[in-house]
């Protein structure tokens, strides 16, 4: 412990890229219990406020000729609506509020996480795994409710040669159960990696000689992160639509 401290103090290079992901209580220094108000609570709350601000307050005028905020809200609405319609078809629109919730939450959580010193809720597997499992359970339940045992046809590739079908069924089954894992790790991994890389570059900024390069690199990474923040929300949403399509139309 002591040597650790000495090493940290002796060198000007201090890398703590993962410290930004620590969950802390907002008030006091106690342990983090289930209902403790933490930085997670704060940034989730801000995401809710942002969603309400855009989607409710932004559209409060109900203008036929929209204001700026209303047209952004309408853009988001049309974007997700069209995505569901294109991917799953008309019968997928029942899930529009649910998918819209996922999309709006992830977009705002990602972008709020780009504010310096903020806490990125979507960088935690705990968060994305819940989102992904909610989708997985929804898809599975909807699949069986809509199609009954016919949903299992998803795993039986009828276009393949008969001898291959059992092997393919095993592969399909495994890939089906891996979905929530890839679905959640893709989002959290992308967000976490980008933030950690920015922090590493920021650590190099302490060296005078390297700091200009470091700052340029941080700026470039930040630009990339803005893209990633949107694209990962989009990817998560469209994958949700694709999985829902499997549940609604399981024919392979």
């Amino acid at each position, binding site marked *: *412990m002591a040597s650790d401290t000495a090493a940290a103090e002796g060198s000007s290079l201090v890398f703590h890229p*993962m410290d930004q992901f620590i969950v802390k209580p907002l008030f006091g220094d106690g342990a*983090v219990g289930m209902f403790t108000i933490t930085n997670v609570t704060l940034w989730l709350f801000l995401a*809710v406020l942002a*969603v309400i601000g855009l989607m409710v307050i932004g559209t409060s005028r109900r203008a*036929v000729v929209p204001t700026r905020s209303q047209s952004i809200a309408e853009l988001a*609405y*049309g974007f997700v609506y069209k995505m569901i319609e294109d991917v799953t078809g008309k019968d997928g629109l029942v899930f529009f509020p649910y998918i819209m919730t996922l999309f709006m939450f992830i977009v705002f959580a990602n972008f709020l996480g780009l504010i310096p010193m903020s806490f990125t809720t979507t960088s*935690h*597997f705990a968060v994305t795994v819940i989102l992904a499992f909610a989708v997985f359970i929804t898809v599975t339940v909807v699949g069986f409710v809509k199609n009954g045992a016919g949903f299992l046809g998803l795993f039986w590739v009828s276009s393949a040669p008969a001898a291959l079908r059992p092997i393919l069924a095993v592969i399909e089954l495994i890939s089906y159960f891996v979905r929530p894992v890839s679905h959640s790790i893709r989002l959290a991994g992308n967000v976490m990696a980008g933030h950690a890389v920015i922090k590493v570059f920021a650590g190099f900024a302490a060296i005078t000689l390297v700091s200009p390069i470091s700052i340029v690199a941080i700026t470039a990474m930040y630009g990339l992160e803005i893209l990633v923040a949107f694209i990962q929300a989009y990817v998560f949403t469209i994958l949700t639509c694709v999985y829902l399509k499997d549940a609604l139309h399981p024919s392979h």
Partner: protein
Amino acid sequence: MASDTHAAQAVSSCVDSHGSAVGMPQLCGDWIGNQVFWLVITLVVIFLVLSRIALPRIASVLAERQGTITNDIAAAEDLKRKAEEAEAAYEKALADARAEAQNIAQATRDEIKAELDVALEKADAEIAAKAAESEKAIADIRASALENVETVAKDTAEAIVAALGGKADGAKVAAAVAERMKG
């Protein structure tokens, strides 16, 4: 050291004595319950807000706009049709007016021509009448002139005969003069 250890114990097993993360904070089991609890609340709130307030509102606004646009397009088409009708009416009026003008011009021309013809005819007749009258007058004058010449010739012949000392016989003189005048 003692205080360090104390601090580390107080916070979490995932954070070391300096407040730095031990390993990946994402894999720290101590925080999962807290994150899941607040996440579920967040998602439920966002879902309720979106499904109860925001999405129906935006849907109605979009529907209203679509209606407005459709109405406006219909109104624009109506107006366009009216404009076309008005243009056609204008063109027709113009053509009518032109034809009318032509008719009036033609009628006026015909009328004037007819009047002119009548006047010419009348003038011709008058001229002919006047000419005939004049001819008659000239003939009269000529006739009376001849008569006068005869009378004068007789008188003169009588006077000459008388002056020469003869006794003028009126009847003989007259016959002689008439003889002479026949040429």
